[in-house]
């Protein structure tokens, strides 16, 4: 990798480390109801929201009530989005005159669920399929709401660890309101303006028709992009305003815009680790989680960057220069923007699959088998290396419970974590959440690879075609939304099965984790003794990262062997797919 590539990676990760504490500290204050610098402006709005919606701020919820509130919030959002997408031909802000026929029921089903579950898998080309009204009201609104719901769930689960001798985890409506008003709104306002300053369009103009130097006509898409672009990254949603997503110069016009968008993806998930530490009364617990996430992120980034910089040996055998020179970046540049290069593409791809974002600035389908393996593995490990907003933290807490359970088995002690005794029920719920995700991935992939109509939708044969299908279901389950773009997913089969799997990956994972948190909240605090496993240490961070990798390998090695590993071995033997 080039020196400038290494500098990019160091600059990005250094900024993430620097921003984690202030962001986490701010969110801890917000969700503990403390005064923040924005309170004078936002507290009246917050109170008005509660009054209008009939919410009593001091009401607390049992975990089951919290889950039902999430369901009510999400089912209304999903049906609302579905209806708007189906009726878009009759609604305003439609200068490109989308008729509505572009969005048939199965595609609207997939799209509405995709945005409700924070996945943003897109089986359509946005420029020609979705009106500005649908983009703003049906899709961007869900970007906000699903992100706020994810943060709320994470905070409720953290309260399970932080509180003792209580049956409640907070109030879902209050948490969603605070996440929206105090976290998403101010950051999106500043971030969207910054992107508009960098050249991202924000208008309601119809598509521009231009004549190229060669004399042909080019249609240049326009629209309210900046306002959707920043929440797309900040909320780890990932659905592009344009089909090329963040590879499109209107979504990602400059190096500074690229850096801002990357930082926006990790900002809240990284900050939430510190929020966790603050809320359980020991910031070192949060840093241990942060360290485990960092180990996973940096290991994946290193392998992906190395594989892409090394390129395809079959191309090198043809006498083509594959190492970097002053004139070209070398490596595997297929499917990558020349302005972003190897380092910028590998960094973004790793970040977007570590978080449950799914925005892309390069085509993941064109990565080398090993580079693609890293992206798949990130999805398969349930995106816990910082992860989605909220989802990354509660996913990692699921693994933390499993890690202390395994450590307890090894030393013969009752496992404890942040002052709570971890018993049979909590371990059962953590394992249940883990298995729900695993089962969804392998069952749907197994079904799809045996349906002729599904297999014929892959652009490549052999192990690469298998990877395209596997990636699609892993992406849906993990609520990521990025794709191995070779799969033509806009069929009733894929729209239906991917839509359902997004629901499973989102909500059926949350239920057992909320149950686990509810059970933990009821327990008394256990004092630290000489026999307590220190979970705020570097050793525990390494153990946690190892457990994530070990569990992921045990679950998915056979699937990876059929996909990217087989492809890598065949590539070295000179066979490409």
């Amino acid at each position, binding site marked *: 990798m080039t020196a400038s590539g290494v500098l990019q990676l160091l600059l990005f990760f250094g900024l993430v480390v620097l921003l984690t504490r202030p962001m986490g500290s701010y969110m801890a204050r917000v969700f503990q109801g403390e005064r923040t610098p924005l309170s004078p402006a936002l507290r009246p709005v917050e109170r008005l929201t509660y009054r209008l919606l009939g919410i009593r701020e001091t009401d607390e919820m049992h*975990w089951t009530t919290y889950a039902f509130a999430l*369901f009510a919030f999400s089912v209304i959002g999903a*049906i609302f989005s579905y209806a708007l997408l189906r009726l878009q031909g009759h609604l305003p802000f439609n200068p490109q005159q989308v008729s509505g026929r572009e969005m048939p*029921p*199965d595609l609207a*089903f997939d799209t509405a669920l995709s945005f409700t579950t924070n996945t943003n898998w897109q089986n359509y080309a946005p420029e020609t399929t979705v009106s500005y009204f649908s983009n703003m009201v049906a899709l961007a609104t869900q970007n906000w709401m699903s992100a706020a719901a994810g943060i709320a769930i994470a905070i409720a689960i953290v309260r399970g660890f932080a509180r003792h001798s209580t049956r409640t985890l907070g109030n879902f409506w209050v948490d969603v309101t605070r996440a929206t008003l105090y976290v998403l709104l101010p950051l999106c306002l500043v971030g969207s303006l910054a992107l508009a300053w960098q050249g991202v369009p924000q208008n309601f103009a119809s598509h521009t028709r231009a004549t190229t130097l060669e004399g042909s006509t080019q249609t240049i898409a326009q629209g309210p992009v900046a306002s959707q672009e920043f929440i797309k990254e900040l909320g780890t949603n990932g659905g592009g305003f344009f089909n090329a997503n963040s590879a499109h110069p209107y979504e990602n016009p400059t190096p500074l815009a690229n850096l801002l968008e990357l930082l926006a993806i990790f900002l809240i998930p990284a900050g939430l680790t510190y929020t966790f530490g603050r809320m359980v009364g020991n910031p070192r617990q949060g840093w241990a989680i942060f360290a485990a996430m960092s180990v996973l992120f940096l290991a994946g980034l290193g392998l992906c960057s190395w594989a892409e910089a090394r390129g395809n040996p079959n191309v090198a055998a043809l006498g083509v220069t594959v190492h970097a020179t002053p004139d070209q970046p070398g490596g595997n540049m297929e499917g990558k923007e020349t302005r972003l290069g190897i380092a910028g593409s590998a960094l973004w791809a790793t970040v977007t699959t570590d978080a449950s974002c799914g925005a892309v600035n390069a085509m993941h389908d064109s990565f080398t088998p090993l580079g693609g393996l890293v992206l798949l593995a990130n999805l398969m490990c349930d995106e816990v290396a910082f992860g989605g907003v909220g989802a990354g933290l509660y996913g990692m807490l699921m693994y933390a419970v499993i890690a202390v359970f395994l450590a307890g088995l090894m030393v013969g002690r009752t496992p404890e974590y942040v002052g709570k005794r971890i018993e*049979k*029920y909590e371990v059962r719920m953590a394992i249940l959440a883990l298995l729900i995700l695993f089962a969804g991935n392998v069952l749907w992939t197994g079904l799809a690879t045996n349906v002729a109509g599904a297999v014929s939708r892959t652009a490549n044969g052999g192990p690469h075609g298998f990877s395209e299908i596997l990636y699609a279901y892993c992406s849906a389950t993990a609520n990521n939304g990025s794709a191995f773009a070779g799969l033509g997913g806009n069929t009733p089969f894929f729209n239906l099965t991917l839509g359902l799997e997004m629901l499973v990956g989102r909500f059926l994972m949350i239920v*057992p984790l909320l*149950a686990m948190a509810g059970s933990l909240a009821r327990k008394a605090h256990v004092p630290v003794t000489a026999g307590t496993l220190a979970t705020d240490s570097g050793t525990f961070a390494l153990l946690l990262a190892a457990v994530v990798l070990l569990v992921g390998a045990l679950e998915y090695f056979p699937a990876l062997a059929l996909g990217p590993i087989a492809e890598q071995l065949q590539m070295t033997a000179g066979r490409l797919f």
Partner: protein
Amino acid sequence: MLDVICIVLIIFFFAAAAIFVRGCARLEREE
């Protein structure tokens, strides 16, 4: 007709998820 099926499917999923919540809660009480 397909619209109705899609909306019913969404509602059906959340109804099933609510049953799952009750199942987890019952397991908690039993333990």
